[in-house]
């Protein structure tokens, strides 16, 4: 008689580890948790010290009248009350919103267009991708100086080219009407590379079977783009929109180098105004109040985007 074989079912019942085994696992789990915390600690400390700390400090400073040297004086919400009649603040906010809501869609369109082109299986795509990414990888201040030179009204390259077509180009950076569009064009050129890389990664992650199925069903290229590409690219679009809007609300360096906020205050951005209030006019409390308003704007706009995300962003078809 054959000896009964032990099946999994008849095998010795599973037992929760007890005694030394459970203790070993528990110790191991504990030491892993400790190691995880040790690894996280520098990053967490960095976040607390360099991100959360300054935000809280800015909130406190916004309630003070402080010129850095005299003892700070608590003035409650007076700094926020000052914002109402401050025309320059509202002008700076308007300029920042104008910059954001024109430059972000333009950047997205250019990025998406280039990503779609590069996704056509071009030869030497890596070379094109690297070249197109160069503006993004270049220091903004250096790029801004080059664009100042391009925009020179009388001898600049842009007006020289326009002149070749019989067009009398405007005085770009010293014109009330053209200074902000000129800044936006430069910013789009500077930042499309970032969106392009994100979109390209998104495009390459879309399964080819979906395109083949659409082809079999006789879908036109536009319909394929609308029904397959765009929905599956929506997470990339969402990420790029959120980061671009946050970045655009913080625009500073290119405006400082190219126009210094002028002519008048037509290109003064909010961050530039905050910097000037705090470090040139020595009104730390008022600058902090402006920062808190900017922070609130960014939080509200980002939260709104996350709300819309539920309806517009698709992670599968």
């Amino acid at each position: 008689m054959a000896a009964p074989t032990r099946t999994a079912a008849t095998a010795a019942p599973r037992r929760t580890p007890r005694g030394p085994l459970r203790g070993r696992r528990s110790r191991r789990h504990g030491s892993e948790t400790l190691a995880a915390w040790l690894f996280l600690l520098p990053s967490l400390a960095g976040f607390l010290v360099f991100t959360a700390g300054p935000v809280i400090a800015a909130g406190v400073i916004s309630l003070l009248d402080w010129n850095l040297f005299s003892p700070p004086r608590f003035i409650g919400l007076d700094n926020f009350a000052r914002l109402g009649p401050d025309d320059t603040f509202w002008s700076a906010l308007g300029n920042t919103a104008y910059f954001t809501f024109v430059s972000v869609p333009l950047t997205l369109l250019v990025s998406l267009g280039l990503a779609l082109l590069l996704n056509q299986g071009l030869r030497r795509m890596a070379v094109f991708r690297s070249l197109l990414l160069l503006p993004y990888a270049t220091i903004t201040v250096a790029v801004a100086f080059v664009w100042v030179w391009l925009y020179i009204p009388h001898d600049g390259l842009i007006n020289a080219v326009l002149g070749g077509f019989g067009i009398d180009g405007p005085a770009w950076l010293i014109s009330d009407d053209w200074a902000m569009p000129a800044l936006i064009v430069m910013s789009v050129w500077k930042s499309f590379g970032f969106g392009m890389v994100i979109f390209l990664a998104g495009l390459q992650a879309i399964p080819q079977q979906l395109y083949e199925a659409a082809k079999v069903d006789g879908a036109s290229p536009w319909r394929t783009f609308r029904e397959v590409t765009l929905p599956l690219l929506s997470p990339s679009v969402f990420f790029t929109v959120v980061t671009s809007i946050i970045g655009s609300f913080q625009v500073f360096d290119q405006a400082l180098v190219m126009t210094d906020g002028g002519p008048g205050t037509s290109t003064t951005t909010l961050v530039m105004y905050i910097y000037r209030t705090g470090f040139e006019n020595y009104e730390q409390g008022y600058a902090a109040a402006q920062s808190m308003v900017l922070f609130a704007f960014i939080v509200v706009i980002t939260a709104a985007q996350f709300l819309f995300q539920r309806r517009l962003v698709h992670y599968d078809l």
Partner: protein
Amino acid sequence: MSSSFSRRALLKGAALGGLATTGALSGCSSGPPPGTATWSMWSSSPEEQRVWTDFGHYVERRMHIRSASTLTPSDGYPTKLDLRLVSGTASMVTALNGWLIPTYASRGAHRPLDDLIAADPDFDLDDFYPAIRSISSFAGRTYAIGFDVAPTVLYYNKTLLERNGVDPPSPTEPMSWDTFRQLAIELSKPKDQYGFTCSPTIDDLVSWIYCAGGNVVDGDRDTSPLDAPEAMQAIHYVVDLFTKDRATPPIDNLVTQNASGAALANFLQGNVAFMQNGPWQVLNVRKASFEWDIVPFPAGPAGSKPRVSGSSFAIPSGVKGDDLDLAWRLLKTLTSTGALDIYARAGRNNPARLSAASAFEPPPANLGIVQRILKGEVAGGHPFDVTTNWNRVRLLLAQDLPRAFLGQKSAGDAIDGVMPRLNALMRQHRDAVRQAT
């Protein structure tokens, strides 16, 4: 098993090591040892850096202690100084551009030096030009000791004038405004040649305002006299050179910190006859490929009274006890005749002391007029009058004045537009002065 344990142990060790290193680094102090003579200065070029290195060697030779200077590019210098003053890490002596002295003094960032001067029989304040003593004072007290001082002068392109059959201007008798304007127009052939260049900012405009008998700041009232007839005459005169007479190269750039550089670049191109600027640009103008020289600033209705600017060394308020004694000795050394001779020989600018060496070797041949203007022997000068909130005044005017220079607004409209805000800043300035005194 043992390999897994080793890896974990290694990672844990690495994490702990990283934390320990971070902690150790953050706990370390990188400041110089006690007793070191520490001072801060702006420095934007290798040439400037060489001068300050020589200053450091001079301090070490004279004081027999170690010198440690903190050098920062000029654009970022005030912000860095603010942060170091607030964090208590500022040097015991800090350089200040003259137009910032009232700002720092009124905020209590630097200490008055009168007690130290009075207690030091070796220190002779009378050896400094009156203009720099005025620039370095606030509310009747001395807050800094100068190291350079100079009036704005008129650079002219000798070659261009000769080519156009125009005699060089007199090095001792300033041209009248009428003569200057006629010459500027005569020498202008737009796109190829221009009569004059300056920046469309208050820093350059103020020299013309002083020459007309006007000012931006009025010591006795709460309002700015910038809209007074004298100042308006000057503003119209300069704006007209830009917009009506077309005697200036077109404005390409409104960025304030580049504005003065743009005027210099225009002049160095060789197709501009006159440029207003200070002798601190002599080093740069020497790169010109044409012959040039300097003459006194054109005389307006009130004479030739261009802006006189200067820079100084000051002691932060936080310096006390033994450090204060060391700081005062350091400040005296940095502004001594010997140190200023180094500065003058390097051709940085005109030294602030009468006893320091005469400025640079030629060109310009007429450089001696700088010291003669400061002594009141030729033409004249006007110490740069600024407020305790001059940063804000400057920014306000930088926003609206260029529109007049560009012809986008009339000079009258531009000034009318800024006057309410300018007067508010003047009232704030008066309050700051009252509180400080």
